[in-house]
């Protein structure tokens, strides 16, 4: 009588036994052809990749960074690392136009924080890392071809026996301070969370999702928790078919995602609001002739604020193709709880409540549902006491899906995790047993589904405003009704020569545009010292945002005809 799997590898072994015909398919760039492997094949490939990683020197309990796009190389190597007890950590490969150096910096910073000795990336990455300033990266970066050509050590795979509480993998996040950290996820948490996902998704359907749904169709990147856990790991542990589209393909051809959802039987898809909004903006019902969207039984929406406007527009547009608005299923979670913390279980589509709102606050908030199994959610005041239903406070959660800490960062771990309770950094309230989010305490921007750390924008601004660190800046996001979250930078300038201000403001926009591929809703220049700071000189971003929205910051004026920001 087989026991329940205790580790991800055991779970994959079980899936390979019970669903030998099930598997994962990955579409090409045009979304026309796909390459599919069955679960038994995936297991075999994983073991082979693990043996090669071991041959390369990847060690047990050591991180292995994977900077690759969606594809079989990434999946093989991720699973291969798990097979030998190394800790895979996915990180985004380079984005599209003009964003080279920011990505290199991010990779190097992360590698140094994690004391990582192996990073698998593209050939181009290795070449680019040969420039001054990127010695660490140059030393540790290898290509997929390098890995494939390594003399394998299969013994490392055979000998490795993970345990329930061992670390399975790491997920990169910015945590509550906006600086990059790696969330440690043990096998126990990964297995618990995928079970919780199976029940959460299935609740409106009256059964476990994997019992009634045939497949999942996901375009989310595998360096994002919703894509990695909600897409890949959920499929590997539960055995339904997974159809993967790369984020690039989705952004270029969003209709491919919808088309596949109407094609392979009862389907589920995890996605941020941004995905639904993209479809509203770019896909007409006509383009989906032949697709039967009534098969799409669970349209999960999470990972960023759910916008009721988007949900309504999406439902109206695709009703013509059979999409049932009741399939929309809001959910909530974060990397620190592996992925999922709460799911809507009513199956009545998106439900909202109206609030009296201050500037920059949403007035219509979405019901995100109930906590997952074995998990408690509490709303707390700044002094730590629990708040009653209906009152807004910080969202805390405790359960078996929680992370065990940030890798190599006990101080940050202690800040976010206390007595098993995770401080999510989000703000919200509970009503009728369901969670609603109203905002975010943590310094994180989520723009079009992508997590962006404020310090990256601030570095760009301060490179322009200079002054040896005496002029500071603060970045945050503001919510607009139709555009979702947008980025704002407020930067101090010393000796503001009115003739220079226009150029300074423009230069900041150009830098942020080039380094991060991010347009800015506003660049506000202020006098030196105008930004609120702690006694140690750290910019208080949340307070800054409040001042900005309340109109209590004074913009320095440019000369006539110029733009001060």
């Amino acid at each position, binding site marked *: 009588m087989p026991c329940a799997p205790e580790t991800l590898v055991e779970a994959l072994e079980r899936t390979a036994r019970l669903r030998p015909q099930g598997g994962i398919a990955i579409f090409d760039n045009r979304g026309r052809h796909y390459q599919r492997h069955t679960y038994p094949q995936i297991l075999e490939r994983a073991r082979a990749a693990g043996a090669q990683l071991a041959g390369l020197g990847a060690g047990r309990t050591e991180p292995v960074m994977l900077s690759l796009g969606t594809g079989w190389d990434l999946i093989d190597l991720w699973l291969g690392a798990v097979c030998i007890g190394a800790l895979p950590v996915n990180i985004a490969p380079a984005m*599209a*136009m*003009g964003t*080279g150096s920011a990505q290199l910096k991010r990779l190097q910073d992360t590698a140094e924080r994690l004391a990582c000795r192996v990073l698998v990336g593209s050939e181009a990455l290795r070449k680019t890392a040969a420039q001054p300033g990127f010695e660490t990266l140059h030393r540790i970066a290898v290509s997929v071809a390098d890995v494939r050509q390594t003399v394998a050590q299969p013994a490392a795979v055979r000998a490795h026996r993970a345990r329930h509480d061992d670390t399975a993998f790491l997920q990169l996040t910015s945590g509550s301070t906006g600086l990059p950290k790696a969330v440690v996820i043990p096998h126990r948490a990964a297995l618990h969370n995928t079970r919780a996902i199976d029940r959460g998704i299935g609740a409106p359907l009256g059964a476990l999702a994997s019992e009634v749904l045939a497949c999942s169709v996901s375009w989310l990147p595998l360096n994002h928790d919703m894509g990695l856990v909600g897409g890949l790991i959920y499929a590997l542990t539960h055995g339904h078919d997974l159809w993967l589209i790369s984020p690039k393909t989705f952004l270029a051809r969003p209709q491919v995602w919808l088309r596949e959802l109407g094609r392979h039987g009862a389907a589920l898809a995890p996605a941020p609001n941004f995905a639904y909004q993209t479809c509203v903006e770019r896909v007409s019902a006509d383009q989906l002739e032949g697709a039967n969207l009534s098969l799409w039984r669970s349209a999960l929406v999470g990972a960023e604020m759910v916008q009721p406007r988007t949900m309504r527009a999406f439902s109206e547009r695709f009703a013509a193709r059979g999409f049932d608005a009741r399939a929309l299923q809001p959910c909530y979670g974060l990397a620190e709880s592996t992925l999922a913390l709460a799911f809507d279980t009513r199956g009545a589509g998106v439900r909202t409540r109206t609030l009296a709102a201050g500037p920059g606050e949403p007035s219509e908030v979405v019901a995100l549902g109930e906590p997952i199994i074995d998990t408690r959610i509490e709303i707390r005041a700044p002094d730590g006491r629990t708040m009653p239903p209906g009152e807004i406070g910080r969202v805390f959660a405790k359960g078996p899906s929680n992370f065990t800490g940030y890798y190599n960062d006990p101080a940050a771990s202690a800040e976010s995790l206390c007595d098993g309770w995770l401080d999510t950094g989000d703000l919200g309230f509970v009503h009728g047993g369901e969670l609603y989010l109203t905002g975010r305490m943590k310094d994180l921007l989520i723009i079009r589904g992508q997590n962006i750390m404020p310090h990256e924008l601030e570095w760009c601004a301060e490179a322009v405003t200079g002054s040896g660190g005496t002029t500071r800046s603060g970045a945050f996001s503001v919510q607009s009704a139709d555009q979702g979250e947008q980025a704002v930078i407020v930067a101090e300038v010393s000796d503001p020569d009115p003739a220079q201000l226009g150029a300074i403001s*423009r230069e900041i926009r150009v830098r942020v545009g*080039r380094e991060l591929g991010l347009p800015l809703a506003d660049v506000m220049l202020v006098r030196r010292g105008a930004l609120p700071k702690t006694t140690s000189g750290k910019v208080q971003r949340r307070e800054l945002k409040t001042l900005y929205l309340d109109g209590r910051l004074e913009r320095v004026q440019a000369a006539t005809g110029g733009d001060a920001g």
Partner: protein
Amino acid sequence: MDKQQKTLAVIAEISGRAAAEIKPEMELTADLDIDSPKALRLLLQLEDEVGVEISDEQAAAMHTVGDILEHIGER
């Protein structure tokens, strides 16, 4: 339409500006609000409509309208 004009037309469509307003010195992100998702669409449409392929490496070095026009002009 020659390739340069077609290119401007694609950039116009993606950025939501009139083709006549688009100048070579304009920054794709800072001036035309072209973020990463739009940049991907741009690359694909340039491939489909203008018939010019741009590799990831080449794209990483393109910051302005002029950078794109220069690349297109050589093909």
